């Protein structure tokens, strides 16, 4: 028996097509959609599978701030299970992919590792094919497409790609889970995104200052200090963020630096 026949029978039980054709049509449509989603002949196994959840949320948050000739990427290092149990206090959520590209992820760590592997493979092949390193713009576009290729079975991650572009300027690209890409001056993702972003709006974007007010210049020192402050605030209020901050600083023409600071551990 096909979906069509099944839906027809279901509908015929409720509506008389002669007297209420519109109602019958509507009922048929809903019945069809319903039957397609949950066919009556589903086996127990199938029903069980439909409840199957491939994802888990490991919490944590990351953010990135771009400056004139640098980019600061930060994340906490806590990994949690079900928002309650801390399963690891020293996880690296920032993945430097090359000398000028840094990937950082929050969400499902399994997908994050898979994504890193994918990008590393692509970067390796690019280096092999063209004998030069990929620029961050290209890598950003590549990541967007690869995220979208999984449109119907997405990666469970909020990714940020940061780096130094070919003009030596800092670049931050922010994504949604299916690869809506945008280049921004600063971005955050993960559980504490709603707390980090308004703070950065205020301190980096200066959106709350009235016009004509003097705005402090964004230096590397200021950016790192702001990011640390932002994370300290989040660690107080967001339970899956904490333990320590991992800072990765990329400057134009300099190797990538790593820095670690303690956060609260409760």
């Amino acid at each position, binding site marked *: 028996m096909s979906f069509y026949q099944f839906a027809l029978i279901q509908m015929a039980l409720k509506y008389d097509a002669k007297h209420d054709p519109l109602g019958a049509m509507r009922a048929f449509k809903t019945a069809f959609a319903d039957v397609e989603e949950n066919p009556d002949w589903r086996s127990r196994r199938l029903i069980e599978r439909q409840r199957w959840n491939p994802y888990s949320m490991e919490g944590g948050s990351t953010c990135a701030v771009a400056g004139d000739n640098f980019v600061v990427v930060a994340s906490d290092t806590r990994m949690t299970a079900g928002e309650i149990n801390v399963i690891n206090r020293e996880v690296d959520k920032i993945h430097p992919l090359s000398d000028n590209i840094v990937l950082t992820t929050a969400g499902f760590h399994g997908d994050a590792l898979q994504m890193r592997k994918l990008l590393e493979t692509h970067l390796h092949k690019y280096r092999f094919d063209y004998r030069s390193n990929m620029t961050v713009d290209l890598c950003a576009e590549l990541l967007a497409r690869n995220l979208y290729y999984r449109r119907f079975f997405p990666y469970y991650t909020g990714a940020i790609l940061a780096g130094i572009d070919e003009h030596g300027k800092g670049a931050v690209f922010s994504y949604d889970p299916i690869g809506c890409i945008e280049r921004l001056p600063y971005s955050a993702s993960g559980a504490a995104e709603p707390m980090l972003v308004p703070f950065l*709006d205020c301190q980096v974007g200066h959106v709350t200052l009235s016009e004509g007010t003097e705005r402090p210049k964004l230096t590397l020192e200021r950016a790192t200090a702001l990011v640390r402050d932002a994370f300290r605030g989040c660690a107080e209020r967001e339970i899956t963020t904490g333990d320590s901050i991992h800072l990765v600083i990329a400057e134009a023409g300099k190797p990538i630096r790593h820095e670690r600071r303690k956060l609260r551990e409760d």
Partner: protein
Amino acid sequence: MSIMSYTGGTVLAMAGDDCVCIASDLRLGEQMNTVAVDQKKVHKMSDKVYVGLCGFHSDAKTVLDKIMFRKNLYELRENRSIKPKVLATIISNLAYQHRFGSFFTEPLVAGLDPVSHKPYICAMDTIGNICTPEDFVAIGTGAEYLLGVSESFWRKGMNSEELFEATAQSMLSALERDAASGWGAVVYTITKNNVNIRTIKARMD
């Protein structure tokens, strides 16, 4: 969209040195539609005690009337102006009376003790669990955004000017990212001597 964010709105209260600030946005919406842009969620209870009501606006209005009634009755019976802590307990009791069919509104109380001028701020959930931190409380759709910013802005022992600045900046930053509230804000700075009401210009989108 849950009923708690149907009409939108955000209230923030911060405590300083013998002063408190309470700020609210001005939007009244109907899901994503904006219906009014002059609807403050902060209401005066007595000279130095204010209450903020977020959540579903119809319930907030009803609860406000009920609070008013109980507060007036208290003041008539006792013949003295109400303390913020007493008001909070009254509201908590009122909310818990509706434990199994609660009002969809989160109350917040901010004020100075009429005698000792000690600052008092508290927020509660829909069934009246009082939470009294020493620094700041936020309720409504933008509470999460406020927590991050206020945490960085709040310092111990701020005077009324500093406190106003911290409250206004936190509020504006949060409104920047919350679609369900905004369209201007109003800040009440309650000090020993007077209550200063200031409206702040915000984005209109």
